[in-house]
């Protein structure tokens, strides 16, 4: 751990030692994504009494999605706090707590509901340090479900990353698997800036090996989920799985080998890893569960063209959702989202392009 002094932080701030090698991803301690999140929060709460969790249903009900199950029993109602249904209210209260030296974790039942707290999370939290001349920081984590949860209708199916990533001052984390979820959430809680941590209702039950030991995954470092030399697939969050599936299918059916990059964080964005891969493969497909217009995929493509134009053998390709509100009907929702078939088709077409 390295220590940093910052005017906005009441105590010397301790960064994890990111040079320490991460524990192996393989093992037999298989737990759910939601348990990995719980483990990350609980470990940090045991370590630092300033950390607390606040949100709708997080305490007595054990979390709307059981992420915080058992935490009330362990930490008590001063640190696991049920709130009225008022995202705007508890987001703002959390910001005040962060300004005052605490380390709040604010759970949005869904990031879709964060829209009613927009001024607090976009106009207050990310600007507090800046507008107060570094007098107040805002070390807060907002976390919750993001993306289409499965026939929840358009207003409850937001992917906020495209919208929110436009705002300077925030950090945006979007893990794709339980191992990363634990390591990234622990880093988020320690982070001195506001962090938006985007989970997926569809992945909370996913199981994988998660080491029991404590580990911290640095922000801005992509994970190479699969290695190949013909095309670069870039994604983050849930669609990473579709990319890996598509890559396996392409390798079998077409003999096309893809690099699959799991970005892990959107802000900061590991553009260097993307450029490095593109310089090897000369082709890129960006898979993004946001709407296409002014999306993260658009940003990635732009930066790739700015930094690696001459290395591209074909125009970058985006696979986004359709540019419509998330459909309610099951079949329509599935067709609207990026999926393995659409990704494979995009890669096949791109591979043939000259």
């Amino acid at each position, binding site marked *: 751990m390295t220590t940093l002094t910052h005017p906005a932080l009441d105590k010397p701030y301790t960064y994890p030692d990111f040079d320490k090698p991460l524990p192996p991803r393989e093992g037999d301690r298989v737990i759910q994504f939601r348990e990995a999140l719980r483990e990350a929060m609980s470990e940090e709460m045991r370590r630092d009494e300033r950390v607390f969790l606040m949100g709708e249903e997080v305490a007595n009900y054990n979390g709307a999605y059981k992420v915080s199950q058992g935490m009330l029993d362990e930490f008590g109602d001063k640190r696991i706090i049920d709130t009225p249904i008022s995202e*705007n209210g508890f987001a*703002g209260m959390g910001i*005040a*707590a962060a300004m005052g030296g605490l380390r709040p974790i604010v759970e949005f039942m869904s990031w879709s509901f964060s829209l009613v707290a927009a*001024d607090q999370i976009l106009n*207050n939290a990310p600007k507090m340090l800046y507008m107060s001349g570094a007098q107040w*920081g805002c070390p807060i984590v907002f976390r919750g479900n993001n993306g289409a949860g499965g026939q929840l209708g358009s207003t409850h199916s937001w992917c906020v990353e495209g919208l929110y990533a436009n705002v300077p001052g925030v950090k945006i984390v979007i893990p794709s698997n339980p191992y990363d979820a634990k390591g990234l959430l622990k880093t988020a809680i320690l982070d001195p800036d506001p962090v938006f941590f985007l989970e997926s209702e569809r992945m909370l039950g996913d199981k994988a090996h998660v080491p029991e030991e404590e580990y911290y995954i640095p922000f801005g470092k992509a994970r190479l989920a699969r290695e190949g030399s013909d095309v670069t697939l870039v994604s983050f969050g849930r669609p990473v799985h579709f990319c890996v599936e598509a890559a396996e299918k392409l390798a079998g059916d077409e003999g096309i080998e893809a690099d699959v990059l799991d970005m892990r964080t959107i802000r900061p*964005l590991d553009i260097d890893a993307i450029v490095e891969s593109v310089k090897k493969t000369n082709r890129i497909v960006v898979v993004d569960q946001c709407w296409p217009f002014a999306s993260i995929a658009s940003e990635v493509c732009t930066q790739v063209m*700015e930094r690696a134009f001459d290395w591209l053998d074909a125009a970058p390709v985006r696979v986004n959702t359709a540019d419509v509100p998330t459909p309610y009907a099951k079949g329509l929702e599935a067709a609207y989202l990026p999926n393995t078939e659409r990704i494979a088709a995009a890669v096949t077409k791109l591979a043939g392009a000259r």
Partner: protein
Amino acid sequence: MPRKTVYTAEIDFLQILDEEGRFDESEGLENGQPILSDEQVAYLYEQMSICRHLDEVAFKLQRSGRMGTYPQNKGQEANAVGSALAMKKGEDWLVSAYRENAALFMHGLPMHNVLVYWMGDERGSKVPDDVLVTPLSVPIGTHMIHAAGIAWGMKLRGDRDRAVITYFGDGATSEGDFHSAMNFSSTLKVPLVVFCQNNQWAISVPREEQMASETVAQKAIAYGMPTIQVDGNDIFAVYKATKEARERAVAGDGPTFIEGVTYRLADHTTADDARRYRSPEEVQAWLDKDPLIRTRKYMVARGFWDDEKQTELEARTKRIVKEVVAAAEGIEKPSTTDFFDHMYAELPEELKRQRDTMRTSSLGQDPSQVGLRAEGQRV
């Protein structure tokens, strides 16, 4: 079964010093003495006078291009000073909007900070460490939730004899944030004074068009919060109500709502022209209720103020404001790359790149990052 009344409510109005300078002893005395000593009244009068003069000078600075937009406090000074005196400096937090300058100054905010801020320099929001005020908050009502949060923190920590006061206008009570702050602070029973500066106008929208309720104060009833309407141009009434509210707060009895009825004598900001939407008669009626005029009448009647002291105060006020303007204008100009400071606790690589090359519009402007192969380089 006949209908029955399950709830009724009344709103008290408190006035101690009226616009003629008449003092109501039934409310204004404590142990036979006025609740504000002569020294305190003189001090508050001075604070109001300085704030008023700062307003006038700031207005001229804006008109001569030396300042950005500025919202004058004119007419609302009694709300600020009366309440600020009732709060405990160095212990209590002031979480303000932007029309309470005198309250902030009384709690230690250097006056030039406010000018620097409105001159368009973020450094104006950098408050000295021992001054417990938050930066001016221009988005309407958003800071009220922070006030509830800070007060909640005090409660959770078990702080003794500490409270928070938050200021906002009548217009802010239309915002959802107002509701959130009222609901949270009352259900959590936090040590908070919720102070509404009802200045009758939300920019150009009169109070009657903003809300259907007779008073602003009655909005607190729905939150189970003690509430009162006071003459906001009366330093005694404002002081007394705030003092009582603070006592409730530190006793653990939760938040109190105060509606300080006042009037925005100036335009909303320098970007506004209130003559376009309100009558000269209305403004004149409120000019007669000016808090400075009635306070001066009281001081003269009590025999501790005269024209000589007034002249001396005016000279001192001018000197102070002149120094404040000089301090604000004398601040070293920021360098262009300063705007990358304080974005994050540690500047991310991407922002370092932007700062180093000062290209903010397009990555492509930085030759080192243009993704073209150098001439002659093998493909």
